[in-house]
């Protein structure tokens, strides 16, 4: 349960970062400069936010000359919507641990 979910949630917990991600989802590929004009924070700050989003698998970057273009990876959100799949894995592994515990309780 923890890993991919947690990374996505913490990456999107910051309102500025969430705003950048939503803008990329709606507006398609954009440069750091283009995003800075709309984000209301400095370009280094936007770059830092993009770095966090990239690490979480939420955006992809593409270098072209001196410009870096960013696109949203919407499919990274699928685990959030399909929580059932994640929880199924979680509970299957908990059941395994429960089984181990029950065996130990015999001794």
């Amino acid at each position, binding site marked *: 349960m923890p890993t991919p979910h947690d990374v996505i949630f913490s990456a999107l917990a910051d309102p500025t970062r969430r705003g950048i991600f*939503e803008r990329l*989802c709606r507006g398609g590929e954009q440069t750091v400069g283009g995003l800075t004009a709309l984000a209301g924070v400095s370009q280094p700050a936007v770059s830092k936010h993009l770095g966090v989003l990239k690490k979480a698998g939420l955006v992809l970057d593409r270098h072209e000359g001196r410009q870096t273009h960013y696109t949203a990876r*919407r499919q990274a*959100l699928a685990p*959030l919507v399909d929580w059932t799949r994640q929880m199924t894995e979680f509970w299957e592994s908990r*059941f395994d641990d429960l089984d181990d515990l029950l065996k130990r309780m015999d001794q």
Partner: protein
Amino acid sequence: MTTTSTETRSVVIEREFAHAPDKIWRALTQPHLIAEWLMKNDFVPTVDHRFTLTGDWGSVDCKVLEIEPQRALAYSWDAMGLESVVSWTLTPSAAGTHVRMEQAGFRPDQQQAFAGAKFGWQKFLGNLDEVVARID
């Protein structure tokens, strides 16, 4: 969006254990045993008792909803924006005990089902289905 506001999703895990119901019941309701297979906790087997499951990644807020010794146990399970109910049903079987766990929760587009307001999640999750619907 065309989904109904009452739609829920659930996860069901069923397994046959070669152990008697009373033993499984102990594993499900005694804090030191729960900690061995699920998470650290302050569980008390009393209806309406609120408890927290704590993992190294965060915590889950729970409340006991139903207790029927050796047969049924249910508690709410609220974590990371998901409000759900976890229900355990124990049925004696030839081999030991049939254990059924169902976790039922709400879809992300049901704003009232999400306790994420403090993180500003509601607006975001409200848009999520729309965003995900465009996934290639």
